[in-house]
């Protein structure tokens, strides 16, 4: 049962990451490879606030999400000047920079040694320990994130994001200052990724820079595209697929030592097949 709950928590964290990234990649058509940076800022932020400054879980979550959004504003201001391939490359640059900060700002992040003993969440006196309580907490977080994303994509704002994806230059002629919309959705997405980071750090109790490198950003793109571009349900499916696939490989008798590599290969092959036959992803409605 603990094993299933553990997988549920990981699926939930990746679902939040996938939902938030889909706002930028699927709905707005901006191929962002910076998401691991925000995931990491959220995780480090809440870990440091709780462990070093004695913040409660809730206040640490709120503050680290706000910090992540502030970082999102800075990065988004630069990225909103780009589109297409340049956007992807510039965003990857930020992911690499963030990893460098996590690794080298030792006074704050403890460098490569990471941060141990991150407290478990405690809300109104109830401690969410690993297992069912934490899985329930993450489920609530996924529902909360899903509702926010649902509200965003079904608003007039969401319609503008889709139009930016389709033809940003033409949309500007109709009076839209598109850079503001790109910045706004990027900041919302960053905040939600930071939220996922806070949940992950508290659950695992240990974070190090390796959990937030640029490969994580690439994997999150895989989650979004596999599940479906511009499909919230697709992000949930993509997250489940991403987390559960290596477990399935284990069940079919593949040794643990190669499941990681096999997972990457299967994702790669799956992505190639999708780009050839269904570029919008399994449940997706739109092509990049």
């Amino acid at each position: 049962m603990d094993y299933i709950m553990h997988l549920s928590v990981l699926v939930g964290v990746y679902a939040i990451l996938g939902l938030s990234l889909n706002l930028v990649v699927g709905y707005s058509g901006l191929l962002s490879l910076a998401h691991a940076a925000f995931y990491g800022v959220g995780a480090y932020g809440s870990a440091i606030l709780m462990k070093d400054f004695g913040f409660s879980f809730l206040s640490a979550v709120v503050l680290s999400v706000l910090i992540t959004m502030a970082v999102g504003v800075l990065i988004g201001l630069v990225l909103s000047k780009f589109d297409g391939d340049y956007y992807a490359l510039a965003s990857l640059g930020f992911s690499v920079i963030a990893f460098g900060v996590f690794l080298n700002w030792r006074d704050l992040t403890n460098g490569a040694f990471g941060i141990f003993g991150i407290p478990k969440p405690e809300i109104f006196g109830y401690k969410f320990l690993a297992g069912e309580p934490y899985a329930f907490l993450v489920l609530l977080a996924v529902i909360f994130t899903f509702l926010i994303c649902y509200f965003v994509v079904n608003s007039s704002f969401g319609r503008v994001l889709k139009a930016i994806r389709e033809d940003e230059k033409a949309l500007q002629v109709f009076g839209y200052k598109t850079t503001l919309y790109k910045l706004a959705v990027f900041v919302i997405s960053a905040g939600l990724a930071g939220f996922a980071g806070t949940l992950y750090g508290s659950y695992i109790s240990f974070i190090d820079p390796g959990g937030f490198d640029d490969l994580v950003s690439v994997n999150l793109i895989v989650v979004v595209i596999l599940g479906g571009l511009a499909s919230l349900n697709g992000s949930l499916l993509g997250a489940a697929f991403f987390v559960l696939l290596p477990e399935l490989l284990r069940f079919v008798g593949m040794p643990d030592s190669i499941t990681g590599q096999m997972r990457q290969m299967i994702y790669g092959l799956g992505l190639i097949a999708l780009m050839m036959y269904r570029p919008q992803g399994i449940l997706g409605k739109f092509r990049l």
Partner: protein
Amino acid sequence: MIALEVKKMKKNFGGVKAVDGLSLKFEKGQITSLIGPNGAGKSTMVNLMTAMYPPDAGKMIVHGVTLEKWKSYNMPTYGVTRTFQDVRLFEQMSVLDNVLVVLTERGVFRSLFETHGELHLKQAEEILKRVDLWKKRDEKAEDLSYGQRKLLEIGRAVAMDADIYFFDEPFAGLFKEMVKTVVSILHELKNNGKTILLIEHNMDLIRELSDHVIVVDAGKFFAEGEASDVLARKDVVEAYLGE
């Protein structure tokens, strides 16, 4: 009364002078046709006036306000909207969303908390019925026929409720019935005091619709006047219209 004036507009693409010091005036409430052979600079001129490209030189005077620099997203503020020579719809969005997106709130925060949804839906319904696309409102724009796509783009421009419309070859590729629809829309806009710049190659339509015709060639002014006079000029016919 002049609604829009362009002074000494210039645009070079590499070594090619696409627009070479053009100055034009558009009377309020009139349909002015901009004609000339392919490559004369007509569409480039519209792209410059709507800031799709930055001009190398020139200025615009809109409703008496002189603009030295202008941005695409400011054009609706000056009451200007347009269609494109090559239809530019939001292809993977529904027909309805293609119209709704130009009707709804422009502010980021206000668009998140839109409060006029029903009104915009009603307006979109009227416009889509006008271009006979209401029944196709849930289809993706990319799934429409070429003529329907043209009509949707024209409907989207009409939805802007602008003062000045640039229609870039709105009749190209349309069936007879569709041409009638567009003609009636142009008449309706004109009757409501709107200013229209029409780029068109069909001489019969130009004669029927235009109050004024401006001929350009190689990015330069060539001739202007009433349609009947300009189109009767031998030099215009021989050199530019091929009739």
